[in-house]
């Protein structure tokens, strides 16, 4: 794949063959070399074939090989020009995302109660296979309709949480009737569960502030203990994507669309199949918003029990909750004209800058918080959206994998990974020891390097760096 250097943090793949637009990758040379070593760059080119795509098929600095879309892929299609929606551009874990809570505690204060907190979390946070759930399945119908608002009304979390959640924790246009019975069967026992893979609940401390004004607006300060939760829509979302992909194969032929990879199957946003998928996707997203809301409630309960303090006195307010696997209809200025686009972010975080109309008043001056979790045992970042964002208001979503799971597991046993983390003062509560080996810090790229590119490419600007104190893994 031939790449042309646009700047030291931007590369272009020329539109050749039936590519409709060029590819554009935001990466340093070092990060790009890693992306080229696998097939991620050719996946950027494949996405450029989608009907209605505008601007470029883009990739964030944490780009790596996915299935269909690259992980870190961003693609916007113009709905009025026959633009398509591709379930593969959202992924199986619909509305997978990250939620960050602040607290009143310092690392030293947490240290005195860390065993109690980790024990409470270990007991309260269902994770891994067949783990059960926090919230009752009878809430499912309301959750698919209303997302976090449904579990709030059932007694989980605080009203103020909704203000600090992308979409207010409720995706518009949800159509619970478009979610299959099979998907609902899978979701009914999983509301309030972490899942496995790279999902986690982490206790972190703010190790550095890069932008005082933004940190203040977000409710963060140096030395503060925080809780970061990374998970999504569980089996309900996985089944919703599976169902859509099955239908879209033949539907694509009816619409005369061909794509280079079956996993990129897509239909016009305005088609019956497109609207059906977007309704089901929004309902699955509502499950994910509610899922993280319930888990945050449990984290507060865990701290309250461990510190013997009422939950409302913990200072554990929501910094932000943002998705990184979603397709959304958004209005963007393209060639001097406002156009309604279907923006796919597959492993990319929405990152709206200061003044964006969807931001609440308290965030309007500084921009939207962008949560970038690092790998287990390494730093995570809070960024702020940039008004000059060149990627349809998108930024990186994590460190990005560097090593395959197989290679990481070969390098060191999970027991060794756990021991190294504990020697560094990081408490670990794994669901599976093998998973620890696969998710070891060296299996991922350097998150600081990813954030530096976000900053230099004006995708988002650094606000605060967080380092881990405790990890609960699936």
């Amino acid at each position: 794949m031939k790449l042309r250097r646009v700047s030291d943090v931007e590369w272009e793949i020329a539109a050749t063959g039936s590519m409709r637009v060029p590819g554009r990758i935001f990466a340093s040379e070092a990060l790009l070399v890693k992306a080229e070593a696998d097939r991620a760059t050719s996946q950027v080119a494949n996405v450029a074939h989608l009907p209605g795509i505008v601007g470029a098929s883009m990739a964030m600095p944490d780009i790596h090989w996915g299935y269909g879309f690259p992980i870190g892929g961003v693609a916007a299609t113009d709905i009025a020009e026959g633009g398509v929606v591709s379930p593969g551009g959202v992924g199986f874990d619909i509305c997978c995302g990250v939620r960050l809570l602040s607290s009143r505690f310092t690392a030293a204060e947490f240290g005195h109660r860390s065993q109690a907190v980790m024990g409470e979390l270990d007991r309260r946070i269902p994770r891994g296979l067949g783990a059960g759930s926090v919230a009752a399945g009878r809430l499912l119908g309301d959750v698919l309709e209303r997302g976090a608002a449904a579990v709030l009304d059932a007694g989980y979390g605080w009203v103020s949480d909704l203000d600090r959640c992308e979409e207010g924790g409720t995706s518009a246009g949800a159509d619970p009737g478009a979610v299959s019975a099979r998907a609902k069967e899978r979701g009914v026992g999983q509301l309030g569960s972490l899942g496995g893979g790279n999902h986690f609940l982490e206790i972190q401390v703010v190790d550095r502030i890069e932008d005082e004004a933004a940190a203040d607006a977000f409710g963060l300060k140096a030395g503060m203990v925080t809780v970061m939760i990374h998970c999504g829509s569980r089996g309900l979302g996985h089944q919703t994507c599976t169902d859509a992909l099955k239908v879209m194969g033949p539907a694509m032929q009816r619409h005369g669309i061909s794509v280079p990879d079956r996993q990129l199957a897509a239909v016009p946003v305005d088609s019956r199949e497109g609207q059906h998928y977007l309704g089901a996707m929004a309902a699955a997203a509502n499950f994910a918003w509610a899922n993280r809301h319930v888990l945050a409630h449990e984290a507060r309960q865990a701290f309250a029990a461990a510190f013997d303090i009422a939950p409302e006195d913990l200072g554990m307010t929501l910094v932000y909750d943002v998705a990184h696997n979603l397709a959304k209809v958004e209005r963007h200025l393209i060639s001097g004209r406002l156009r309604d686009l279907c923006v796919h972010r597959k492993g990319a975080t929405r990152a709206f800058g200061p003044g964006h109309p969807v931001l609440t008043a308290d965030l309007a001056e500084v921009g939207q918080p962008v949560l970038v979790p690092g790998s287990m045992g390494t730093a995570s970042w809070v960024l702020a959206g940039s008004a000059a964002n060149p990627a349809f208001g998108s930024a990186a979503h994590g460190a990005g994998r560097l090593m395959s799971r197989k290679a990481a597991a070969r390098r060191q046993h999970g027991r060794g990974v756990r021991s190294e983390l504990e020697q560094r003062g990081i408490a670990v509560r794994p669901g599976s020891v093998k998973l620890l080996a696969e998710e070891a810090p060296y299996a991922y790229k350097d998150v600081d390097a990813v954030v530096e590119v976000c900053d230099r490419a004006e995708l988002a600007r650094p606000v605060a760096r967080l380092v881990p104190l405790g990890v609960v893994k699936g």
Partner: protein
Amino acid sequence: MSGGSRRPYRTLSHTADTGIEVEGATLDDVYANAAFGMFDQVVDLSSCTPEVEFTVRAEAADPAELLVELLGELLAVAEIRRVIPCRFEMRQVTDTSAEMDVAATPVDRVQHHGPPVKAVTYHDLEVIQSDRGWKARVLFDI
């Protein structure tokens, strides 16, 4: 029936996810071996003792799509029943439909050694006839 101590598949390296390649004298073997390979990513199936049995069915346009459909159905049923399927026997297979008898063990009776498989993808999917029968390649979202 695919199971026991042998490993009738090869794990493929993928940066974020995982995949398998399987071979078989017949399409039946390929589907059963792929099912074994998928769940063996999560649990050491050689250590499982089956306790429950059920049948799954799938239909699709061609043998490759049928593999995705069948494995996806297995994942969904296993999650709903809270079991890990560990023995697989094809009851009937055509190019567009399959029925598989499954023996499984409750999920809380097994030691997990890998992350759960979220879903079966179409990326790099292949089911083809080879000199020795059939072979297939399928990638999973982890």
